[in-house]
């Protein structure tokens, strides 16, 4: 499963919300430029921002008054960048919040075929959170944990 599909699952979770420090990404076809444009936003404040102006083919912005990019139909189309360490850290915080368990963490485990699997791990061995995984990536384990949150 690629990061975009995972990100769509993440934002569909009831425990999902944008957190300061996360990185959002949105790619879209810009009719004026005639090419696909990727805009990255480092979340700092409210996402309720009007984006106007002319983007370059790729731009990194902050979700504040500094945003000056056009072609953005609505901010809710943005997806979290699950390859970004800060975003993954925030996703872990959301999982902990959703489960009410500050001991939750991701753990790498060696599978029988010698590949790495990522599972969720927490202090309480009886917690169903410990049954989440294994998955191929750390991000997938976190998204699955957020989906499975009570």
């Amino acid at each position: 499963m690629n990061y975009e599909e995972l990100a769509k699952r993440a934002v569909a979770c009831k425990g999902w919300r944008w957190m300061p420090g996360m990185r959002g990404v949105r790619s879209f076809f810009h009719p004026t430029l005639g090419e696909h444009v990727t805009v990255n936003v480092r979340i700092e404040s409210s996402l309720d921002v009007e984006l106007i102006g002319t983007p370059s083919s790729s731009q990194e912005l902050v979700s504040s008054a500094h945003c000056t990019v056009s072609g953005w139909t609505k901010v809710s189309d943005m997806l979290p960048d699950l390859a970004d360490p800060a975003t993954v850290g925030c996703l872990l915080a959301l999982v902990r919040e959703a489960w009410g368990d500050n001991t939750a963490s991701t753990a790498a485990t060696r599978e029988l075929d010698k590949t790495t699997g990522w599972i969720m791990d927490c202090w309480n061995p009886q917690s169903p959170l410990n049954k989440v995984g294994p998955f191929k990536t750390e991000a997938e384990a976190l998204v699955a944990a957020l989906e499975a949150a009570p």
Partner: protein
Amino acid sequence: MENDKVEISQRLVACKHFRWMPGMRTLGDWRVINVDSDGVEVVTDLSEVVLFHSGDLPHIPSSLPDLNDPATLGCLLALVREICGDSEMHLTLGGAGWVWLSGESRVANVVLDIPAGKTEAEAITLALEAAP
């Protein structure tokens, strides 16, 4: 932030392997948005974008990393994995505190040779301090 976390932040920035990463937040409520050869670009608490030349930021008051910030902790975890060359390193809470494991060591039930930390932030600091 509690005094012990400030102390840990000070230890962190003193580590030779520490570097600012996009997404980190400072105790002064600044957010790092870009890091390149020109320096570290931050958004200040007044929503101003400021570029600090490499090496300057750690010496500016209140520019310690905010260890209560989940994004900052995520960056630091990635930094430890990069410095230690082990993408499977992870923290888990055990009887001794937050301990470092890797995929391989989990099977063998052996923790990595890094002291446990009372908090995740302390464990991260200990890992960076211990890195060669």
